[in-house]
C-alpha cells in the first residue's frame, strides 16, 4: 500500500463505521469476482455505505485521492463488470436494499439499488402488479445492477429490457453530485439520459435510486412445448408465429445437448431424442390466450413439428419451464466448468450460426450446448471445459471470442443482455470502429473527467484494439488502420 493509499483509507474510516469498511484480505476475498469467476482481483478496499450522503462523501474522497471506483450490487453479473480494480475502491450497495414507495395508481415503485429484482414483484403482487424484466438470476440479482447492465430475461421479447421498464434514476456523478434523471412522468425534457445511463456499466455514474414501471398481471398464461427433428424448422416456426401477428411472452429454443442435460438433471419430461425444442409462453386475457395457443399449435405443425404439448395446468407449465430455467446448472453438470456466451443475431441466421458453432466445437474439441431466446435472437452458447486442464480456459475464451465475432459478422451484436464488462472488451474492437469508440470515450470524458468510475471496463482503448487488431488480420485488412502500431 502506498502512503497515499493509507492516507485515503484513514480518511475513509472517518466516513464509515469500522464494520462497513473492509481492508484485510480475508474480508476482501468474497468480493474478488462477480458471476464471471474466471477473472479475480482483490480491491484495495470495500466500502458498504448505507445512504446517499455516505456515497457522496466517499466519491468526493475518491476524487481527492484519485482512487478509481467500481460499483457492485449483488455480484451476479456475467461479464466481469463488477470485477474490482487492484488500486480501487469497491462500492458495495447491498445495504441500500429498501423499497421506498409503491404507487399502485401510477403503477410505479421507487426502490434502492440493492433491492433484489424478484423482491419488487413480490412486494407489489398484492396490488395485482409485477415488474416485467426477469433475468434468470432474478432471485438474487439487484435492480441497480439490472439498470447498469440493461438486463433482459426470457420475457423481454414482449415486455422489453430494463431500459423500457424504468422511469427515473437518482445518480451520484463522478464529482459527487446528486442528479435526478427522468421523472415520474412517461418522458422528460432534453436528452434521453435515462437511456444513456441504462447499460452504462458503472462508467457514467452511481445509481442510488430507481423508479420502475409496474404492469398488471395477465389473466392467464399458457405454455407449449414443441418438438422438432430439425433446427431449421424450429427457426422457421418462430418466424411464422411472429409473422402471424403473435408476440409470445417467451420463446425459448434449446438444442440436443441442452435438452439432454436439462432432462437428466430436472426430469421435466423433455424428449431427449429431439434435435430442438421450442418452449413458448403466451399470456394475456383468456380469449386471447386461447386464440393464440390454437394458432401457434397449427403453425408449428405446418413447420414440421413432430410433437406439440400444451401444458394441462399450472403445475405442468412450471415443469416445462423448470428444464429451461435449470439449463445452465444442468449443463454445468456435464463438465467441471462452462462458459456462457451472450451474442445476438438476426433470427434468420440461426441455422447458419448453429452450424458454424458446431464446426468450431469440433475444431476446438470442446462441446457446446445452445440455449436461445429465439424470439429476440439472443443466443447463449455454453462451452464446456475444465479449468484444471492447462490451456483449456484460454482455448475456451478464444472459442467464445470467435462465436461473438461470428455474431457481428451476420449482423448481430457481441452482447444482448450480459454486458461487455471485462469479458468482451476485445470483441468491442470487432463490433465498433475507432470513430465510434472515440465517441464513447468522449461521452465518458464528459460525464467522468478524471476517469475514476469503473475504468477499463465496457469500452476498450484504441491502443488495445490496435494491438489486438494486429493479432486478427482478416483478408489482409488491418482493423483500425489509422492507428499507430507498436
Amino acid at each position, binding site marked *: 500500500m502506498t502512503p497515499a493509499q493509507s492516507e485515503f483509507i484513514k480518511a475513509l474510516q472517518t466516513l464509515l463505521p469500522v464494520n462497513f469498511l473492509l481492508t484485510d484480505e480475508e474480508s476482501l476475498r468474497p468480493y474478488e469476482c462477480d458471476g464471471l469467476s474466471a477473472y479475480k482481483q482483490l480491491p484495495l478496499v470495500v466500502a458498504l455505505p448505507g445512504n446517499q450522503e455516505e456515497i457522496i462523501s466517499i466519491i468526493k474522497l475518491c476524487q481527492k485521492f484519485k482512487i478509481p471506483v467500481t460499483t457492485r450490487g449483488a455480484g451476479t453479473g456475467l461479464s466481469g463488470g463488477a470485477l474490482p480494480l487492484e488500486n480501487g475502491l469497491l462500492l458495495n450497495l447491498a445495504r441500500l436494499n429498501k423499497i421506498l414507495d409503491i404507487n399502485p395508481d401510477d403503477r410505479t415503485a421507487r426502490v434502492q439499488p440493492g433491492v433484489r429484482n424478484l423482491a419488487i414483484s413480490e412486494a407489489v403482487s398484492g396490488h395485482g402488479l409485477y415488474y416485467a424484466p426477469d433475468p434468470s438470476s432474478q432471485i438474487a440479482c439487484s435492480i441497480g445492477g439490472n439498470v447498469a447492465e440493461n438486463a433482459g430475461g426470457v420475457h423481454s421479447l414482449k415486455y422489453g429490457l430494463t431500459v*423500457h421498464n424504468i422511469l427515473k434514476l437518482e445518480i451520484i456523478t463522478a464529482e459527487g453530485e446528486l442528479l435526478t434523471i427522468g*421523472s415520474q*412522468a412517461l418522458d422528460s425534457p432534453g436528452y434521453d439520459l435515462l437511456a444513456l445511463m441504462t447499460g*452504462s456499466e458503472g462508467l457514467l455514474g452511481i445509481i442510488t435510486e430507481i423508479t420502475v414501471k409496474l404492469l398488471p398481471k395477465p389473466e392467464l398464461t399458457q405454455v407449449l412445448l414443441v418438438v422438432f427433428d430439425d433446427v431449421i424448422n424450429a427457426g422457421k416456426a418462430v418466424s411464422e408465429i*411472429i*409473422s402471424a401477428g403473435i408476440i409470445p411472452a417467451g420463446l425459448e429454443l434449446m438444442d440436443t445437448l441442452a435438452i439432454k442435460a436439462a432432462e437428466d438433471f430436472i426430469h421435466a419430461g423433455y424428449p431427449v431424442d429431439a434435435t430442438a425444442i421450442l418452449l413458448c409462453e403466451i399470456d394475456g386475457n383468456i380469449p386471447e390466450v386461447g386464440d393464440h395457443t390454437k394458432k401457434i399449435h397449427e403453425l408449428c405443425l405446418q413447420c414440421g413439428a413432430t410433437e406439440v404439448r400444451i401444458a394441462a395446468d399450472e403445475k405442468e407449465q412450471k415443469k416445462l419451464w423448470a428444464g429451461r430455467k435449470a439449463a445452465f446448472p444442468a449443463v454445468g453438470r456435464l463438465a467441471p466448468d462452462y462458459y456462457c456466451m451472450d451474442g445476438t443475431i438476426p433470427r434468420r441466421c440461426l441455422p447458419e450460426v448453429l452450424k458454424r458453432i458446431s464446426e468450431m466445437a469440433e475444431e476446438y474439441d470442446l462441446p457446446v450446448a445452445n440455449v436461445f431466446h429465439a424470439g429476440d435472437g439472443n443466443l447463449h452458447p455454453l462451452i464446456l471445459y475444465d479449468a484444471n486442464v492447462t490451456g483449456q480456459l484460454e482455448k475456451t475464451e478464444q472459442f467464445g471470442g470467435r462465436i461473438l465475432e461470428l455474431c457481428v459478422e451476420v449482423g448481430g451484436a457481441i452482447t444482448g443482455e450480459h454486458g461487455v464488462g471485462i469479458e468482451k472488451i476485445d470483441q468491442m474492437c470487432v463490433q465498433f470502429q475507432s470513430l465510434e469508440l472515440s465517441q464513447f470515450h468522449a461521452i465518458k470524458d464528459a460525464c467522468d473527467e478524471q476517469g475514476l468510475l469503473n475504468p477499463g471496463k465496457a469500452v476498450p482503448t484504441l491502443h488495445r484494439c490496435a494491438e489486438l487488431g494486429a493479432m486478427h488480420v482478416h483478408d489482409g485488412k488491418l482493423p483500425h488502420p489509422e492507428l499507430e502500431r507498436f
Partner: protein
Amino acid sequence: MILIAAGTKDITSKLANQVKQAYANGAVLNIRGSATKSFLANSDHDKNTAELITTREHQGIVNYEPGELVLTARSGTRLNDIQKILASKNQMLAFEPPAYGEQATLGGTIACALSGPRRPYTGSARDYVLGVHMINGRGEVMGFGGQVMKNVAGYDVSRLMTGAMGTLGLLLDISLKVLPAPETEKTLVQDLSPTDARKCMIKLARQYLPISAMSYTDRFLNIRLSGTQATVAASAEKIDGEFIHKHETFWHDIREQQHPFFKSDKALWRLSIPAASDWVDIETKLDGDCLIDWGGALVWLTSNETPEKVFAYAKTLGGHARLFRQGNSRSDSRIQPFSPGLLSWHKKIKHAFDPKGILNPGLMHKDV
C-alpha cells in the same frame, strides 16, 4: 423475406462533407427534413444565419424483414411510405407517431421523439429505436446499436439521439422494432365528470386489459381496445360505454392535433405528468382548456398563462411542461427548465458530440 423499396437514394457522403466543411469553417447548420415539426424549435434559435442541411433526399427503406420485426430506413424517407409498407404486412410503428404533415420524414419523427395515443400501453419512439447511423458535429459517420432486438454493447447512443432534435448529430438511417398490427380495434365512449373520468382511467389501467388509448375531453372518456376479435369483445363487456363509429378518425385527429380542441389562438402546452396525477382542477388553476391523453399522463392545455406558472404547476405534479405551439405568447424556453446539474450534463454531452456547437444550436434549449 427481405423487402427493399425501389427509388432509394444515399447521400451520406454529401451530407458528411457539408458537416465537415461547416466544422472547418465554424458555420452553424440547421438540419431539416420536411420542416413539418419546425414549430417546436426554440424562438431564439436563429434559422436565418444558419446554413440549411437537408435530409429530404436521403431516402429509402434499406431493409424490412417482417418475420424479424425490424425495419431500417434512411432519415429522409416519408413516414407515410413506411407506414404503408408496414400496413401491407399487417405491421405498424407501435408508438403511433404524429406526423403533423404529409411530408413528415422518419428522421424528424425520431429526432423529435413524439409518440401518439398508444404510447403508455406499447411504448415511446425511443423504445422502438434499435440502431442509427449518424454524422456527429465533426462530420464523422458512425453507427450505433444495430438491427437486433437486444444489444448492450457500448453506450446507448441510438436512444440518446432520439429526441435530441439534431443537436447531437444528423440521423442518416434508423432501425426500428415494429409490431404486428392488432386484428381489430374498437373504441368505447362514456359521459363522465372529470373526477369520475380520472378515477375510471386509474381503475382500468390497473387491470390487464387490451387498452391502447384513453383520452378525455368535453366530458367524454374514449377508451380504445386493440387485439383479436375475441379479446376485444370480451374486454368490452367489462367496461361501461357505447361503441363509437369512425373511431379511426377520432384517434387520428387527436394524434395529428386536428380535433376541434386544438383550434385555438392561445398557446398550446403539453404537460407530461405521472399517470394518476390529479389534473381535475387544471382548467381553473391555469385558466385554460384541456384535453387529457395517455390515460391521464398527458395534458394538452390551451392557455395564455405565463410559462413560469405552467412550468411550476407541472413540477408540483412531478412532471414537466413544454410550450408546444406558441400561439401569441413568447418564451425564452420552450421546455421545462433543467436543474443546474442537468444543464451541465446537457452541455457536456453536446460538446462530446458537437465540439464547435454547429448542429442546431439553441434549437432544443437556449444554452445547448
